[in-house]
C-alpha cells in the first residue's frame, strides 16, 4: 500500500508537469470546436451515448471547448447520467416512504412505533445512568447534590425493595428534590426523557437500592471532585454524543492512586476501562486546582470516537484495531483523496474532526493514516 501511495505521488507529479508543459501547445489542436448547442447538451448530459463519446474525444484534446464546458457545468449545476441513475432513487425512495404511511400500514405500524419509542427511551435512560454512576456515589457521600440526577436511573435498574433504612429514605428524598431542581434547567434533555426520569426518581425515592449505601460508605470523599463533575453530570448527552471519554479514569483523578485502584476493583462495571488513561490520570492525583486540565489530558490520550477507540502514542492517535504489520494509506487532511474518502465514509471525518494531529484509523479492514 505504501508503494501504491508512492506510485500515486510519482504519477501525480509527472502528470502535473506534463499539464504545465502541454497547456499552451495542445489548446487549439482540435479541428472544429463544439457549438453552443453541443456544449450545453454535453454539460446537461442530454446527449445520446455515441454523440457524447465523440464530443468527449474532442474535449480531451481541445482546451478551448473544455474551458467553456467547465463554465457551463459549474453554472448549470448539472446532474450526470450516472447520478441520474441514482436520482431515480429518490422517486423509488419516496414511493417507498409514501407506502409506509398508507392507512393499512399505519394501523399496525403505529402501535409498533409506540413500542419502539418506549424501548428507545428506556435505552437512553439506562445508558444515561451508567457513566455518571460513580460520580453519584462519591457525591452522595458528601451530601453534594450536583451529580444526583444521574444516579436515579441506576436505582431503578437495580431495584431491590427489601431493606430501606431511614437514612436512605432521607437521602432519596434529597435526591428527588435535587432532581427536580436539576432537570428543569438542562437544555439538552428531551422533555419526554426528563419526565420519565422524574418518574423513575420517584420510584427510586420510595425504594432506594441497598447496593448504593455500602458503596458510598466505603468511599473516601474527594475534596474537589464534585464541582468539576457538575457540568459533566448535567450534560450527559454532550459527553456521549461523539467523544466518549473514559469515565473511570477521569473520576479517579482527584483521588489518591490507591483509592483509584480500589474503585477500579469495586465499581468499574459498566465502564470501559482504559489502562493508558489511568496511567495518565494517576500522576494528576491531588492536583485539584488543575483538574480540568488533567481531565483534558486524560481525554487527550484516550478517546472513543464514532465507536472506535483511540490512544495517543507519540503524538499520533492510534486506533485500537490498528495492526502495524498491515499496510496503510497516508492521506493529508484537506487533500482531494481525503475529501473523497470522507465523502464515502463520513464517520472518518467525525473521527478526524474530533482528534487533532495525526490519526491512524482502521476502517472496513483498511488502515488510513490521516495527517
Amino acid at each position, binding site marked *: 500500500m505504501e508503494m501504491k501511495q508512492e506510485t500515486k505521488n510519482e*504519477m501525480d507529479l509527472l502528470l502535473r508537469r*506534463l499539464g504545465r508543459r502541454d497547456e499552451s501547445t495542445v489548446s487549439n489542436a482540435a479541428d472544429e470546436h463544439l457549438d453552443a448547442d453541443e456544449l450545453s447538451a454535453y454539460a446537461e448530459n442530454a446527449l445520446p451515448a455515441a454523440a457524447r463519446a465523440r464530443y468527449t474525444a474532442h474535449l*480531451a484534446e481541445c482546451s478551448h471547448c473544455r474551458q467553456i464546458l467547465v*463554465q457551463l457545468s459549474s*453554472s448549470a449545476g448539472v446532474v450526470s447520467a450516472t447520478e441520474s441513475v441514482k436520482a431515480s432513487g429518490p422517486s423509488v425512495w419516496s414511493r417507498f416512504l409514501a407506502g409506509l404511511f398508507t392507512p393499512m400500514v399505519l394501523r399496525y405500524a403505529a402501535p409498533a412505533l409506540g413500542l419502539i419509542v418506549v424501548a428507545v427511551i428506556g435505552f437512553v435512560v439506562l445508558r444515561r445512568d451508567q457513566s455518571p454512576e460513580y460520580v453519584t456515589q462519591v457525591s452522595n457521600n458528601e451530601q453534594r447534590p450536583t451529580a444526583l440526577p444521574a444516579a436515579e436511573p441506576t436505582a431503578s435498574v437495580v431495584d431491590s425493595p427489601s431493606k430501606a433504612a431511614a437514612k436512605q429514605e432521607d437521602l432519596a428524598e434529597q435526591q428527588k428534590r435535587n432532581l427536580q431542581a436539576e432537570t428543569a434547567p438542562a437544555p439538552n434533555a428531551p422533555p419526554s426523557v426528563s419526565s420519565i426520569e422524574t418518574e423513575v426518581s420517584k420510584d427510586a425515592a420510595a425504594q432506594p437500592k441497598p447496593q448504593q449505601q455500602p458503596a458510598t460508605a466505603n468511599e473516601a470523599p474527594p475534596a474537589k471532585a464534585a464541582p468539576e463533575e457538575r457540568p459533566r453530570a448535567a450534560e450527559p448527552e454532550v459527553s456521549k454524543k461523539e467523544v466518549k471519554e473514559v469515565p473511570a479514569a477521569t473520576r479517579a483523578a482527584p483521588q489518591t492512586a490507591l483509592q483509584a485502584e480500589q474503585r477500579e476493583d469495586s465499581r468499574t462495571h459498566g465502564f470501559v476501562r482504559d489502562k493508558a488513561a489511568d496511567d495518565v490520570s494517576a500522576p494528576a492525583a491531588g492536583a485539584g486546582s488543575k483538574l480540568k486540565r488533567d481531565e483534558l489530558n486524560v481525554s487527550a490520550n484516550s478517546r472513543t470516537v464514532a465507536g472506535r477507540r483511540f490512544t495517543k502514542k507519540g503524538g499520533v492517535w492510534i486506533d485500537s484495531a490498528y495492526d502495524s504489520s498491515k499496510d496503510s494509506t497516508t492521506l493529508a487532511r484537506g487533500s482531494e483523496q481525503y475529501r473523497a474518502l470522507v465523502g464515502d465514509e463520513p464517520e472518518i471525518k467525525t473521527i478526524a474532526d474530533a482528534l487533532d494531529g495525526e490519526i491512524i484509523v482502521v476502517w472496513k479492514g483498511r488502515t488510513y493514516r490521516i495527517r
Partner: protein
Amino acid sequence: METTKPNIERVLNEGVARLLGRASDSRALNREALTPRISAAVEKYLLRNDPNTSAGEIAKFIDELQADDLCLIIACERGDENAWNDLVERFTATVRSAARSASTNEDAAEDLAQSIWAELYGLRTRKDGMPASKLAYYSGRGSLAGWLRAVVAQLAVDVFRKQSRLVQTEEDTDLERLARAAEGQPIVAGIPTPEESMSNRFAQTDLQNALQQAVQELPAEDRLLVKLYYFDNLRLREAGVVLGVHEATASRRLTRIQTDLRKRVTKILIDERGWTQAETERSFAEVAQHLDTDLESLLSKEAADLPG
C-alpha cells in the same frame, strides 16, 4: 433493423406531432415549421454517429427534446414578436448572469449581454433575406437557459482571445527543479559523474515522453479527466461535475488511471526505449524522492511567508 429513409420520415412526422401535442404553448407552429429543425438534430446527434440508428431510438430522441423551448425559439426565428418578448423577459436575467460571470467588470458584462441579444435577434441578414440569427442553432436537446449560457460563454472566450494572448506564467517547480537537480546535483546520494547527469537528463526526457504517449493512449473519458484535473487545474469535484460523476467516483477513477499510466509508461520504456525493469523503478523512485524534497521546501517557504 436498418432504418430506411421513408421510415425515418415517418418517425420524424410522428415525433413532431407528439412534440407539438406535449408543448404547453406551441406558438401556433405547425409540423412543417418544426420538422426541418428536428430532422437536423436527429442527423447531427444520431445518424451522423450511427446511420443505422433504430426508429425507436429516433422516436425516443425526439420525445426527449425541450418542446416549449424549441417552439419558443422557432417562433422567434419566424418573427413572432410575442415570442421574442417572452424570450427577452424570461431570459434577460440568465444572459446577464452568464455575461457577468464571463466578464471582468460590469461594463464589459453589459456590452457582452447586448451583443448576445443582437446576435440572437439577427441584425445581419442571410442571402435569402431572413435574419442571420444564432437562434437557428438551438436544437432543443439541452435546456434553452443552458444553450444561452453556452452562447454567452463562447462569445466571451472569442472576445477574450482576440484581446489577449495566453502567456505562460507558470513558476519553475516540481520537475523543473528536478531536472535542474538531475543536471548538476546528486539525485539520491553521492555526486554523480557528468555521464550520470547526462543519462539522468535523458532518462527524464524519456520518462516524460513515454508519459505523454501513455496519456494519448488512454480512453477518451479517462483522458478528459486527466486534462481537466492536471491541465486545467480543476478540483476533483469540479471535474466530476463536468464528467457527470460524483467527486468520489472521479477520485477513484483518477487513482486507477494513475496506476494504468504507470504500467503503460513502464511498458513503453521497456519495449520501445530499451529500459530494464530496474531502471524504470529507479527513475520513478527518484521522482518520488524529489517530490518529498520539493514538498518540504515548499512548506517551509510557505511557513516563512506567513505573516507574524
